[in-house]
């Protein structure tokens, strides 16, 4: 009778795996005490995730905690029986200890497809060479690690998604890593060091999210790249501007991005784009670009001119976000209105949504808003959120006066 009622124990192994993979590793291992049939059911679980939810974070002595963590992972890996496809290790109390080397070596003998390692504390963890022999990797995500592949490393031939944050890589390592992952579709790079020249050679790359301090960026064979978010975390020095005086960063940047659909220009990257010759329009317009977000210093004429070039080259823009970077007050006494006389020749026939954030209400900003309202015949909403409450009334008064090309346009003032 008992056996008849016990249906769950007789489910096929892959179903049990699926049920257990919806549980935390702790709960999954706990099932081993249920009954003799459940003794080792968890041991074939193909996905193992060790994170904060798995282990109680008590206010213990760090050495004890570390021992416990190491002990748990050791035991689970040793008792595990079967292929491991997904492994995640992310615990806020875990340092980059050498025990991880051993686990990665162990995993490298499995057909591991997804590997996530996040070292939340302490110094960069140097990835062991065994990681680079995981040929089946499809997704690799590392936080606070140092990568130095062995000389024999031939690339991750199956890798589709790479997420590196707070990582250290040598310049040559970075270049060869990207170009030796031929199937790479998604690349995230945040807060890296060891390399400053980014040459992205990735024929299948579709998504690229980068934020960090770098000197230059170039693309090669990136004809599939459609979504880019790019932030330069340091301002560009004057000597750089002179060095690039004869070329055009803006033209070079877009030369290999014919299908770009979404672009976010963050931090100081517009400044980088403004270096060198800025044409009135790009040689080839970005006809697929429908979303653009730019962070801009309205007081910087160079940035404004670069933004203008970008807007002129984006005829099919549907959504625009402009984030003012008002921290620098390089007041231009002889500031000319760059935005004037442009709207007639340049209508945004698709632009429906505009978001403007962080403005102070200064003249160049108002000129820009005026320009957008006049050049966007199908605009639906424009939301304006100033940086501070001061001058809110003045800003409102100005906004009310602007003529709008679109009958439907709604202007929404948002309190800061």
């Amino acid at each position, binding site marked *: 009778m008992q056996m008849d009622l*016990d249906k769950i*124990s007789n*489910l096929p192994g892959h179903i049990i795996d699926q049920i257990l993979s919806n549980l935390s590793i702790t709960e999954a291992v706990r099932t081993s*005490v249920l009954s003799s*049939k459940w003794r080792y059911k968890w041991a074939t679980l193909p996905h193992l995730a060790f*994170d904060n939810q798995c282990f109680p974070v008590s206010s213990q002595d760090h050495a004890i905690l570390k021992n416990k963590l190491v002990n748990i992972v050791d*035991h689970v890996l040793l008792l595990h029986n079967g292929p491991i496809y997904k492994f995640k290790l*992310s615990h806020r109390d875990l340092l980059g200890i050498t025990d991880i080397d051993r686990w990665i070596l162990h995993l490298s003998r499995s057909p591991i497809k997804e590997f996530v390692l*996040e070292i939340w504390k302490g110094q960069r963890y140097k990835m062991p060479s065994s990681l680079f022999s995981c040929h089946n990797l499809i997704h690799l995500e590392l936080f606070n690690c140092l990568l130095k592949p062995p000389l024999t490393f031939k690339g991750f031939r199956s890798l589709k998604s790479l997420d590196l944050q707070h990582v250290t890589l040598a310049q040559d390592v970075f270049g060869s890593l990207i170009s030796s992952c031929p199937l790479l579709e998604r690349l995230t790079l945040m807060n890296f060091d060891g390399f400053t020249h980014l040459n992205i050679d990735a024929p299948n790359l579709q998504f690229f999210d980068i934020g960090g301090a770098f000197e230059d960026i170039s693309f090669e064979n990136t004809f599939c790249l459609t979504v880019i978010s790019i932030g330069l975390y340091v301002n560009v020095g004057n000597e750089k501007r002179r060095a690039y005086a004869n070329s055009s960063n803006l033209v070079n940047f877009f030369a290999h991005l014919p299908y770009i659909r979404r672009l976010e220009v963050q931090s100081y990257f517009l400044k980088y784009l403004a270096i060198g010759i800025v044409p009135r329009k790009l040689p080839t317009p970005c006809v697929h670009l429908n979303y653009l977000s730019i962070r801009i210093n309205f007081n910087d004429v160079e940035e404004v001119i670069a933004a203008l070039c970008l807007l002129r080259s984006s005829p099919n823009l549907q959504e625009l976000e402009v984030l003012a970077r008002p921290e620098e007050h390089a007041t231009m006494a002889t500031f000319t209105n760059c935005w004037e006389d442009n709207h007639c020749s340049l209508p945004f026939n698709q632009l429906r949504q505009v978001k403007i954030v962080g403005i102070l209400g200064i003249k160049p900003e108002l000129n820009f808003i005026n320009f957008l309202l006049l050049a966007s015949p199908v605009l639906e909403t424009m939301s304006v959120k100033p940086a501070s409450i001061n001058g809110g009334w003045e800003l409102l008064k100005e906004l009310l006066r602007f003529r709008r090309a679109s009958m439907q346009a709604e202007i929404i003032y948002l309190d800061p």
Partner: protein
Amino acid sequence: MSEGSMAVVKPEMKSYIWLQTVDGSIQQVEEEVAMFCPMICREVIQTGMGSSKNYAISLPQRVNPAILGLILDYCRFHQVAGRSNKERKTFDEKFIRMDTKRLCELTSAADSLQLKPLVDLTSRALARIIEGKTPEEIRETFHLPDDLTEEEKLEPLRNITDDPRIRLLNRLYARKRKELKERKKLKNVEVEEERVDDRSVDDLLSFINGGDEDTKGTRTSKNKKKNRRRKDQSKDSSLTNVNGNHNRELLDLPSACHEDEVNNVVLASPSTSSKLQDSAVVTFSPKLEFEDGDIDDDLDPAMKEELDREVEDFARRLNSDWPERMQEILSLGQERKFMPISINGNGSMGRYTSLDQR
């Protein structure tokens, strides 16, 4: 008039698929509903079966008529295009409200029909039922037999590896057990009380030698009896003590064999280890059996001494905190309730929050 004739004509225009369950009953099902199951769809396309009652598609054994009804309800709802995600979610939530036995049957049947979305749904539902429950509660919910002894529950989970050192130790334990057996025989002659209970010694030995497992119910009580006796023995017999330790060690050994570093990690907890010492021989896993031929009775005394030393050294270094930790893990079910829900379970969120902290 025309409406009436339409109503008559309409059902005939619909196509049906004939399905047969394992009990022999045959039913016709709307084509679009039946074809929602990949297994049926493939059968129709590849073999042309299902077009009439005589050519009904035989469904897998795991799909009984009652469960088939449920599966068809699911398919009937989800095969309709244009339903919103919210509608589907609401349906799913209601759909899985059933007792666990039925839910398991449904999972199994959906799996055999390769109906992946339903398998995902029911697996998640089953996981949610398990989640946060104590082992007792899970057993009760799913009618699982409680067929593990307390010792087994605490016993470190066995690992099957082929480490030569394990084999060496196995042989040593076997030898020591043989010695123990001799001693016991002597004792049984000497001590009146123990002779009465010699049946349990036989049980013990058959257990050690990987003999038949006892019926579950009686085993626990016998173990208790044995434990009591062995406690008395261990006071005067250091050998028993060592032996007990080693059996536990053996189970922990794989982790310890890797590197010295690990050895240090595997820590001792005197209370739990002594508790287990008493029962270690009893709970020694029958699967880790060994050939009698492996037992080295004729070891060189010097080597024997060395091995003994090695074994004792191992015992000293290798007291594991696993039982303690297992208990901790097991009690987590209750503890969890008091713990704040961490947002860092999700990888990306963890990443971004940590970014902020940096």
